[in-house]
């Protein structure tokens, strides 16, 4: 390995810190904030050791919830905090690391921004090395803040440090994985897709592994890096040796990525380029066809993500029922939920909230496609042809409206099929699970409406729609724990979605949500017709 291959790394580190001076602090601060809020909420709600014990034993014996949120390492404030906050903290840390790494390696090459840098005294390995160094720093900061926050809260030292360190380790793991992914293809989008697919795979392996502790598939958690984070067991055993797994895989992945980056041409991937058709297809081609052509792959990616999740939930619901049959002692727990079917219904209802958030994230991303088309000036070609603004923006809205329905079906159908098949009651389970999923559609449209209204009126601030989704999720997750007043909870459209399986279908909230979404979209379309482009 030659030193000159790393030339310029220091300058690139400064460039990354400068470019990401706003985003970096935000995602570094989010996990510690969330973890501390959750710890505070548990301390307030379950002040006594006895109450913590009762909650933990209920959770531990509930395989569905263990699968979704992970196992509870200990029946203490620390253990409960780790259980409840891990999934969000892991998602943010993994996402932050992976997206930042890809942004400063493959995206720069794809857009040609790297040409200017690469012509300077910058080694082939420098961009990747610089990104990884910045991510290492960011992850250490996350670990210190999480551990420090929990320590300040009065939690044990070893557990606080172990939890902070496990988040940092998973972050670094995803940074190095993203480093490899961005060497493989020419497109940053595909690199993000690869990392996303691995995240889902790791999550599912861990979920199934953790849920089947008794049935002998727990080894699945050991092949999933997300599973490792839980196997550290902060506030319980603190198995420090698990960090050796992280360390080894980070070293291997980093080395692979660095070697790949110094062997290939700048701008090209490891896999060769695929040629496209010389002509457009003969189907009628308007702006709608274009929007569909541009977004179909992304839509299928979101849909398959939710399909995997649906199959997993269906399978988990089924295995929970099996567990009940095998272990009559668990009957108490199921009685607490109101019987077997009530238990699975509660599990499904709980998982639907995630589906709603994922669907809303899809809808916002697909709506804001309008903005990237505009800032990249690609819209000029379309609007300079005989296409009205209404038709162009409307095409995207049509894709969003239908796409979000497809995304929900992609969850509800496999979930219903898997569970219906195993429960032997397809005719009953499939339709009601599908309906219970689809009721999220109007709430998702409201988020698309917020994005459209912002884009139409103040395009510079359309990213605020992501903030709105974050706020709604925060209100739901933290609001519930902190017992925030109902009027605050009500700002979230998700709060108005009827829990069909638990309390039945009610049309009024769905109709009013649809009207709100429609009004927001119309406001956005009107605003868009009256402003300058670009």
């Amino acid at each position, binding site marked *: 390995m030659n030193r000159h291959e790393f030339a310029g790394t220091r300058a690139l580190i400064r460039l990354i810190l400068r470019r990401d001076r706003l985003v970096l602090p935000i995602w570094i601060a989010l996990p510690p904030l969330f973890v501390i809020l959750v710890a505070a909420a548990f301390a307030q709600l379950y002040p006594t050791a006895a109450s913590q014990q009762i909650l933990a034993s209920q959770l531990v014996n509930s395989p569905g919830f263990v699968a979704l949120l992970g196992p509870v390492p200990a029946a203490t404030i620390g253990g409960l905090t780790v259980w409840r906050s891990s999934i969000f903290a892991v998602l943010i840390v993994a996402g932050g690391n992976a997206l930042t790494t890809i942004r400063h390696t493959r995206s720069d090459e794809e857009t040609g921004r790297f040409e200017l840098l690469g012509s300077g005294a910058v080694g082939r390995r420098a961009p990747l090395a610089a990104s990884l160094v910045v991510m290492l720093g960011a992850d250490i900061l996350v670990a210190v803040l999480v551990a420090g926050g929990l320590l300040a809260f009065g939690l044990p030292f070893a557990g606080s440090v172990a939890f902070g360190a496990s988040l940092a380790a998973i972050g670094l793991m995803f940074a190095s994985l993203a480093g490899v992914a961005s060497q493989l293809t020419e497109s940053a989008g595909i690199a993000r897709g690869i990392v996303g697919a691995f995240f889902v795979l790791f999550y599912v392996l861990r979920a199934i592994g953790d849920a089947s502790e008794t049935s002998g598939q727990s080894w699945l958690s050991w092949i999933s890096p997300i599973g490792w984070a839980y196997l550290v067991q902060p506030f319980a055993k603190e198995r420090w040796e698990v960090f050796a797994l992280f360390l080894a895989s980070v070293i291997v992945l980093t080395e692979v990525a660095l070697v790949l980056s110094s062997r290939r041409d700048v701008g090209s991937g490891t896999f060769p380029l695929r040629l496209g058709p010389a002509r457009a297809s003969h189907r009628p081609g308007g702006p709608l066809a274009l929007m569909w052509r541009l977004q179909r792959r992304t839509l299928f990616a979101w849909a398959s993500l939710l399909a995997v999740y649906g199959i997993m939930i269906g399978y988990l619901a089924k295995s929970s029922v099996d567990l009940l049959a095998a272990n009559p002692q668990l009957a108490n727990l199921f009685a607490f939920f109101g019987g077997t079917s009530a238990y699975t219904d509660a599990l499904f209802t709980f998982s639907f909230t995630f589906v709603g958030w994922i669907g809303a994230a899809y809808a916002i991303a697909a709506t804001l496609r309008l903005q990237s088309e505009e800032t990249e000036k690609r819209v000029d070609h379309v609007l300079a042809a005989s296409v009205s603004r209404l038709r162009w923006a409307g095409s995207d809205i049509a894709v969003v409206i239908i796409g979000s329905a497809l995304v929900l079906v992609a969850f509800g159908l496999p979930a219903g099929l898997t569970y219906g098949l195993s429960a032997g009651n397809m005719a009953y389970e499939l339709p009601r699970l599908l309906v219970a999923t689809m009721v999220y559609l109007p709430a998702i449209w409201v988020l698309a409406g917020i994005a459209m209204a912002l884009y139409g009126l103040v395009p510079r601030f359309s990213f605020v729609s992501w903030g709105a989704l974050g706020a709604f999720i925060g209100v739901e997750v933290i609001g519930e724990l902190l017992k925030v007043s109902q009027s605050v909870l009500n700002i979230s459209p998700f709060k108005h979605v009827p829990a069909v399986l638990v309390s039945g279908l009610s049309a009024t909230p769905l109709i009013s949500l649809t009207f709100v979404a429609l009004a927001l979209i119309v406001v956005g379309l009107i605003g868009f017709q009256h402003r300058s482009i*670009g």
Partner: protein
Amino acid sequence: MSVIQINNLTKYYGKQLALDNVDLTVEQGEVYGFIGPNGAGKTTTLRILLGLLRKNSGQVSVLGRDPWRDAVALHRRLAYVPGDVSLWPNLSGGEVIDLLGRLRGDFDQSRRNELVERFKFDPTKPCRTYSTGNRQKVALIAAFVSDVELFVLDEPTLGLDPLMEEVFRGCVAEVRQAGKTVLLSSHILAEVEALCDRISIINEGMIVESGTLAELQHLTRISVTVETAQPVTALSELPGVHDVRVDGVRLHFSVDAGAINRAMEHLTRFDVQALTCTPPTLEDLFLRHYELQTGDSMR
């Protein structure tokens, strides 16, 4: 009736003045050059003509209609080539050409094939792999396949090689032959001189000069570098000759377009060994323009 009619057009970006009382008239069937340095307001003007930007004040009409209100109907009758062509990275060049052609109405397949051939363009690659010149070809082919009345071209040869520039000029000549109107923005004076009937010069958001090339001849001076066997005398006394400077055996001077003949006659008497003539650059033109202006004000 004029194809493009702009009166007192003013445009602000926030508080910054981008266009200041711009007037421009383009007649049916002419190739009109719109020149100015970077950031002068060329693209802003063109984007207002396409209804992509809102004007702050003034009157704008394209093919007799309001480009903001009647954008869609108008765009069926015009084709646009942006200066900085940005394409969808995962679509192939051929797909984009077909797409843009269809969005404007239908187009002739044989014409498309002919243009792909003439521009030596490979339509199968994904757009993300195209160089600037190749992206430009996508936009040019998509524009020239359409049977429209008006072509709005914003620095269309940026990134094209000289051979392709020739092909482009051929395309412009063809559409002009067919009686169509072309508005060509550029900062390359030679290109505008070769193609355009009339030109307007814009600088800092203001039209500083308009007219036919002949009318603007007083602005153009040619720079000459000459080597002679015998030392040249009395050159600077000739009318229309300026800035005479001796550099060893070489002699540099500039000459008004109308005075070239006399200057050449004078030089041949000293046995010319080598001669280079450079057409005025846009920069020269501006310098000259401001020289005239300050001269006027001093008088």
